[in-house]
């Protein structure tokens, strides 16, 4: 049986190998893992499926990254193979469900958050235990941080995804549900509405106020985060799996996490963003029973605990007992982001064209001084129209998905 996926989180590879060995010992079934390049995780599965050559188990990103494959008929619904209770507990999130069927099993947690440097907050005379909640508080904090001689917010936008992260945090703020985000991507809502281009206007204001690193447009995503780790900036956008690294660089007590400060009025504003990486089964697999058994095996309490003990990854599985976490920040992430009143990460809902031509492009152009918020909205509108024209077969599915996600 074959398994394809990437293991971007350090140490995951060993955990997987260990699990495969145990599974083989117990059942006699062999699983052959193949490591994919991050850039092709999605496209390679589709290509292989089209060639009737898909792996039995595929590592799947959430949302549209696997839903498109679902619509093309490449992914097996898990409901007939895996107990209902586990489907729920695995925390695959609502973005893995279509037409009442679930297509992914959650694996490990990827909460999206902002991190801040407590020491710098202290030095700037800010309360390091109460990071800014509203936009005004945030601007005030930036001001004080800047006056204290540090860069308030650091990031790297050259390769693009920082634009996605920023929008993922901010677009949510004027929306009531994930389904409304889809409305935007299929033209049922209008990007030219100031409500929806507000995120980019906020970015523009931050840039013009000098709150972002001046080389934002000339460094990549991870080097931008490294600026935070190197103690050169006070705040950065980050994902959960990277927090321990920042702690080891800056000292565990220096790193705090926060939700993006709120400017919007939607129901989703100010809530933590939860996402998980997951695993699914190919509809072409000839060993669906074994594949499902392996997925169930990976969710045994012992294996789930090992994910934390060996790799220091937060498991997605909700049955895992988070009280073993000793670090207060990680514990906070576990409680608030993964098990609190959270919302899905809406960037996972957009088509690739929008990802590159609107999310990357808009942020980069704002930093380059070519766009203001409104022009960014106009471009987002045009990209959406273009995508609709190019993918008429996908629009219908998207529409149905939006309806389901609003329920």
């Amino acid at each position, binding site marked *: 049986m074959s398994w394809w996926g990437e293991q971007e989180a350090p140490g995951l590879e060993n955990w997987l190998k260990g699990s495969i060995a145990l599974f083989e010992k117990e059942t006699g079934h062999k699983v052959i893992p193949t490591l994919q390049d991050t850039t092709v995780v999605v496209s390679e599965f589709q290509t292989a499926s089209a*060639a009737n050559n898909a792996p039995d188990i595929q590592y799947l990103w959430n949302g549209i990254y696997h839903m498109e494959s679902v619509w093309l008929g490449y992914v097996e619904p898990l409901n007939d193979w895996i107990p209902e209770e586990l489907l729920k507990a695995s925390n695959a999130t609502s973005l893995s469900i279509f037409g009442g069927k679930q297509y992914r099993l959650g694996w490990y947690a990827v909460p999206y958050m902002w991190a801040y440097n407590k020491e710098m907050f202290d030095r700037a005379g800010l309360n390091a235990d109460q990071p800014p909640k509203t936009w005004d508080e945030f601007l005030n904090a930036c001001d004080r941080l800047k006056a204290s001689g540090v860069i308030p917010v650091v990031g790297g936008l050259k390769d693009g995804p920082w634009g996605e992260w920023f929008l993922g945090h901010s677009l949510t703020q004027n929306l009531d549900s994930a389904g409304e985000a889809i409305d935007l991507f299929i033209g049922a809502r209008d990007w030219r509405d100031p409500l929806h281009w507000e995120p980019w206007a906020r970015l523009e204001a931050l840039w013009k106020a000098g709150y972002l690193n001046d080389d934002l447009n000339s460094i990549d995503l991870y080097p931008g985060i490294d600026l935070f780790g190197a103690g050169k900036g006070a705040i950065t956008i980050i994902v959960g799996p990277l927090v321990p690294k920042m702690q080891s660089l800056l000292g565990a007590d220096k790193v705090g996490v926060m939700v993006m400060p709120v400017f919007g009025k939607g129901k989703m504003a100010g809530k933590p963003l939860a996402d998980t990486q997951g695993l699914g089964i190919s509809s072409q697999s000839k060993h669906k029973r074994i594949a499902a058994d392996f997925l169930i095996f990976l969710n045994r309490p012992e294996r789930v605990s090992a994910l934390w003990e060996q790799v220091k990854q937060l498991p997605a599985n909700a049955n895992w007992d988070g009280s073993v976490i000793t670090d207060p920040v990680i514990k906070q992430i576990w409680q608030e982001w993964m098990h609190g009143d959270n919302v899905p990460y809406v960037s996972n809902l957009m088509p690739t064209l929008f990802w590159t031509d609107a999310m990357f492009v808009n942020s980069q152009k704002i930093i380059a001084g070519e766009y203001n918020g409104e022009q960014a909205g106009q471009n987002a509108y045009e990209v959406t129209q273009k995508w609709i024209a190019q993918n008429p077969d996908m629009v219908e599915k998207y529409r149905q998905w939006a309806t389901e996600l609003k329920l």
Partner: protein
Amino acid sequence: MLRTSRFVPYLYLTPAALLLAFTFGYPLIAIFDFSVRRIRGASGPFVGLENYRQVLNDSVFHLSVAHNAQLLLAVPILLGIGLLLAILLYERPRFWPLYRTLLFLPYILAVPLIGVVFSNMLQLNGVINEILRAIGLRALALDWLGSAGLALWSVMGVIIWREVGFGMTLFLARLQSLNEEVTEAARIDGANWWQRAIYVTIPQLRGVIEFYIVVSIITMLAWVFSYVYVMTRGGPGNATIVIEMYLYNFAFRNALPGVASAVAVILFLFTLALTIPLFRLRAQALEEDRT
């Protein structure tokens, strides 16, 4: 000529023909077929000229074409510098073999390597701006790759940096095969360096110059992917996107191989149109070589 049975030549030709049919023949037919379908996975429904319509109406495609066109401005620069260096070296100044070795060096180095080094040098807080600031040109210390108006020019600068040695070497090789007596006669007649270059040397290089121009045009239109991919990924905000990158994005990122194939057909026809003069010029250049 060897006299063989009628089939033997084809026997010799077959392996190569099969390999060429696989890498060129099949794909060149397939892009025409794919370009009129909405490909999902391996095939898809016929959509007529829809893909072409979308590409030709897409502002990002227009931008890509405009960028490739802008890169064409590098051709006269490459030609000018290449010729100048070749003529200088032809006169065999002291250390000329050393200069030739050095000036040809960039052309040997791989584009990704050069791209990574230059994108670090060109950072806002990189070495180039440090030098500019140090010599009092603070106003020139710009965000070379991070600002939309400059990024493509910066990429062009790097392309010139790498490719100039090639033209130089090509011209030098041709010069060294020329009859020196003509230049000598001009010198004796009192022609100065400039006059000799313009009226004697360059006219003799005409064939190779024309050839070089066409090759460089094709390079600028269809062989600059790695520069852009490594240095800017087409950004900031599509400011450096080129046709190849547009095609790549549609094929491997936006999962629309049909649209990508329409771009491939357009690019293919473009190159084909340029290949025809190239053929004529190369034939001429070969003639010159023989005379």
